[in-house]
């Protein structure tokens, strides 16, 4: 504090504010100058890498060419959006993105909850630890490696599953040209990769349940199944609902990593596997259509913004403590 009091004249010169006009705000700036200095790198980072690109959404309304750049390129009205919606892809990718996310949320929530509930019922500490570690393993690897694993299982000539089918006397399934199989495959791998990590949240919630409720239930003659359905599950419902609403908020966001590594640029499957993110990526990288890609991106950002705000509203209505803002 002493140091701060001796500083104002210098600091005010730095800030180019006459000392008499310094006022309350200026004084507060000076008093907190070290803290402001600490936060400055992150602020600059966020401006450059998050806020500045936001201004780039104008590209969605431009006929972008490399020579003129973002600001110099001519305006294009809503042509980019019209192209996106007229191409016939808009309906497909929006439908796929939403349906996949719905399936991911439902399957993920149910398996993660089930795993958490069963893990707490298991008495053997070793079994619990080892199985939990095994389930956590997929979380640590990249989707590139998951892509390799999927190929091991589903490839035509070498795939484990096809060899199994043939051995059991069935016909081979050419998965990589069978779009209908992919919703199942993708939902499986999403469940697979998230089950260990996701169940931790529910485990924590179960640990937080007041044990006296269990004792009371036991005294009332509850069997273990009744205990799970009438005590455990209702007790962790707040966590379940909060997590559910938060994932609903991201319903228009496709998991690019997953779709790109498992499906890639395999056009045979796009009807069932193309999501907003992969379409936007291909428009940018393959067709160099910056305008349409930006339009798709902006469309998605706006949808995401609306759903997150709505989801947060619902969380807030349910339990204000968990609201994000």
């Amino acid at each position: 504090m002493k140091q701060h009091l001796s500083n104002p004249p210098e600091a005010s010169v730095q800030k180019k504010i006459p000392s008499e006009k310094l006022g309350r705000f200026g004084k507060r700036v000076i008093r907190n100058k070290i803290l402001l200095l600490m936060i400055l790198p992150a602020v600059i980072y966020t401006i450059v890498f998050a806020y500045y690109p936001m201004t780039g959404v104008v590209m969605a309304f431009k006929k972008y060419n490399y020579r003129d750049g973002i600001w110099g390129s001519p305006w294009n009205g809503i042509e980019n959006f019209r192209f996106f919606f007229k191409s016939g892809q808009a309906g497909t990718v929006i439908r796929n993105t939403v349906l996949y996310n719905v399936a991911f949320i439902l399957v993920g929530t149910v398996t993660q909850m089930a795993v958490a509930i069963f893990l707490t019922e298991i008495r053997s500490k070793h079994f619990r630890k080892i199985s939990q570690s095994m389930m956590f393993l997929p979380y640590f690897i990249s989707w590139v490696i998951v892509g390799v694993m999927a190929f091991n299982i589903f490839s035509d000539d070498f795939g484990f599953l096809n060899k199994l089918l043939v051995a059991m006397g069935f016909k081979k399934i050419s998965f990589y040209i069978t779009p209908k199989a992919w919703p199942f495959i993708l939902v499986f791998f999403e469940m697979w990769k998230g089950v260990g990590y996701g169940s931790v949240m529910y485990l924590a919630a179960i640990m937080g349940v007041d044990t006296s409720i269990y004792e009371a239930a036991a005294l009332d003659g509850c069997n273990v199944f009744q205990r799970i359905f009438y005590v455990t599950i209702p007790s962790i419902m707040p966590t379940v609902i909060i997590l559910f609403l938060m994932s609903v908020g991201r319903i228009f966001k496709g998991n690019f990593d997953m779709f790109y590594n498992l499906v890639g640029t395999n056009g045979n499957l796009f009807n069932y596997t193309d999501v907003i993110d992969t379409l936007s990526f291909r428009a940018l990288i393959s067709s160099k259509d910056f305008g349409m890609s930006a339009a798709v991106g902006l469309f998605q950002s706006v949808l995401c913004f609306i759903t997150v705000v709505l989801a947060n509203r619902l969380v807030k209505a349910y339990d204000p403590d968990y609201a994000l803002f």
Partner: protein
Amino acid sequence: MKRKSRLKIQKDVIALNIIAYTFTALIAILCLLPFIMVISGSFSSERAVAANGFSLVPQDFSLEAYKTVFKTPSVVIRAYATTTVLTVTGTALGLLLQTMTAFVLARKDFPWRNGFSFFFYFTTLFSGGLVPTYVLYTRTLGLANNYLALLFPLLFSVFNLLIMKSYIMGVPDTLFEAAKIDGAGDFRILFQITLPLIKPALATVGLFIALAYWNDWYNAMLYIREEKMFPLQYFLYKQVNSIEAYKKMIANNQVSGDVISTLSLPTQTLKMALTVVVTGPIILAFPFVQKYFVQGVTIGAVKG
């Protein structure tokens, strides 16, 4: 409870136990199987895989695939070096950035903490999207084919910031006030008083950042064209998706001098061996770091 027959009580416990053990074991095994398949594929001979496909147990034992990977070790080693340097640098810088920012936002005597919190938080609600970011990196900043394009995107994340912030908020304010009265500056309060108290959060957030860098392939795909600069995961992505090109590279670059044809090199098992070589360290480090990730989820859930 006593009035009920012992048998009846045990019946439902036994039933639950059977279900719980079976279900958990099933999921756990399901999680492990693809890993085993990759490993057994990597130790199989190309001939066996071509004839019988991938399997859970190696059909024979062959080091052919690994020998091929290490025919030109420099290629893999370079990708390893790139990823290691990036991970270490990114984690150190990211941790510093995240901790400093979280420390300021957690200080109750910082007058603008709500405003700044929202400033950071808003970026998770709305983003410019892929194209403006791509143009920023490649054109505005001119970072195409520059390692910085791999470093910057993962340096700072609001999710990690929130974990760190909620952890620092657990440090009693009186500690900061006492230190301040004793004449400690803010940097001193952060580095000498706060940091030792938040070691678990440092470990958790540090590992989150490290894992993000280690597993990153996306930014390399967007910004890096130069093959020699590929980080590990993108290197793997490229090789398994164009394994013939990789074989050609091995054939051309090999040190021993004798001419080999790409036809003599394995294909499927080579992919598997490369995957094992790339994944190995993560799997080996995993038992030691798992608990920190568990911690991260819990902090994020309870206090976030």
